[in-house]
């Protein structure tokens, strides 16, 4: 596979859902290059998921160009070829994991790529081991916990050896131990990724730059001012609510 500098490049993308005048994406530009680790913290309904689905070709933009690996993608056929090289982690793991057992699911991608049965099993096992969940290999998916499902979903995406990862709120509904695990896994990856998250701390821990989104456009680091501050006050250790 030839080396590309630009992995994903969106130019002037406009998108609105059929029957609606609201532009979810409004002349949006985005560039993800090799080794880029980009976070996106933006409010609900700002079009983050639509953006990811547009990159994957699941939503067809009204105008603009989508370039993946420096190739313009227009038809379903073009997207088919690149989809296996872009790993998209869905918001809800139950959408992503549809096979009866964990191993079946993780091997699903490699099998579609034309791997032999044994190669697919080997790849799936290696991926599960890398994420420290090889013990679940034979487990039935609908009996796993939310955190376990998220890790299996990540394994099923990584098993296809993508060149770039798109993660749609990977920490939603997870406890802090699984979050820590995710941070550790993401930081050990050597591919570029784009993380959508509500949690600034998480996004900050796994990415180099943070974008935001407003009115269907992307705001870059220098345009946004997300920050945290620590402070002291009289309630001390007791749990309390800030007003």
């Amino acid at each position, binding site marked *: 596979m030839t080396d590309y500098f630009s992995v994903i490049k969106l130019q002037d993308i406009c998108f609105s859902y059929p029957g609606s005048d609201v532009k979810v994406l409004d002349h949006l530009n985005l560039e993800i290059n090799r080794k880029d680790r980009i976070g996106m913290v933006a409010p609900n309904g700002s079009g983050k998921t639509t953006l990811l*689905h547009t990159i*994957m070709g*699941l939503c067809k933009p009204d105008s603009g160009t989508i370039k993946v690996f420096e190739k313009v993608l227009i038809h379903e056929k073009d997207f*088919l070829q690149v*989809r*296996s090289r*872009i*790993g*998209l982690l*869905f918001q*809800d793991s*139950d*959408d*992503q*994991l*549809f*096979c*009866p*057992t964990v*191993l*079946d699911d993780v*091997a*699903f*991608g490699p*099998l*579609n*790529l034309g791997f032999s*049965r044994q190669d*697919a*099993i080997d790849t799936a096992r290696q991926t599960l081991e890398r994420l420290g969940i090889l013990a679940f290999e034979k487990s*039935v*998916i*609908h009996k796993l916990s939310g955190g376990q499902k998220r890790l299996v979903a990540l394994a*099923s*995406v990584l098993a*296809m050896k993508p060149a770039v990862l798109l993660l749609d709120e990977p920490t939603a509904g997870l406890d802090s131990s699984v979050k820590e695990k995710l941070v550790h896994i993401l930081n050990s990856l050597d591919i570029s990724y784009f993380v959508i998250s509500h949690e600034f701390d998480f996004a900050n821990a796994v990415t180099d730059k943070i974008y935001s989104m407003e009115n269907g456009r992307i705001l870059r680091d220098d345009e946004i001012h997300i920050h945290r501050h620590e402070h002291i006050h009289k309630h001390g250790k007791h749990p309390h609510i800030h007003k």
Partner: protein
Amino acid sequence: MIEETFAYGRSFIHRLDPRTRIIAAIILSFATALCDNLYLAVLYFVISILLITMAQLKPVDVVKRLKPLFWFLLMIWIMLPLTVDGDILYRFYGLKITGQGVVLCCQITIKSITILLLFVALIATMTIASLGNGLHRIHVPDKMVFLVLMSYRYISVIEDEYKRLLRAAKFRGFIPGTNVHSYKTFAYLAGMLFVRASLRAQRVHQAMLCRGFNQKFHTLDDYPPNRLNLIFLMGISVASIGLVIIEMIWV
């Protein structure tokens, strides 16, 4: 929701290829269903008991599996003896119990229990994943195989969704009763469930496309060729064909 309690075992039946077991179950259940003779039906029943013993399943668990069937049979035993025409066996005020009705009830009882036992012994002893694999290898269309596997995967997700909706309704003071308001609420719940299921189906399909799904069914299960499979299938076929011929000639 779906417990595969019988699927994990080390018996002779568990080691058979899913394909063999599916075909054997189909042959035997057809032969049983089409049998018209009470004595031969008992023979099929004996075969099913034999298979259950071979699968080394706990009798108590097996009987538990049959529970829903017993309710259905109870209804038949109440209705049929009174409604089938024939020689009167017993008269009770205006009601007549007929011999033919009782015989028919016995037949239905034995045959339905037998078929259920056959499926418990042969099909319930494999995981749903293996069942999908077996169906695929006897050339059932991939779409049907996916339908089976996905129902298995998502039935618990849909159940969760239903419970969540019902809980939300109950938290707002909904008490199910026999009134229009309750019916309407349940209709809303059902409608919402359909909407959510169809939205989820769209998302699942998108997720499948993202991972290069190309309408083909792949499986990881591997069952090495084993002569026992052939012998077992031959045994089952000979037994059922034999019984069918006996019924045709002598009965």
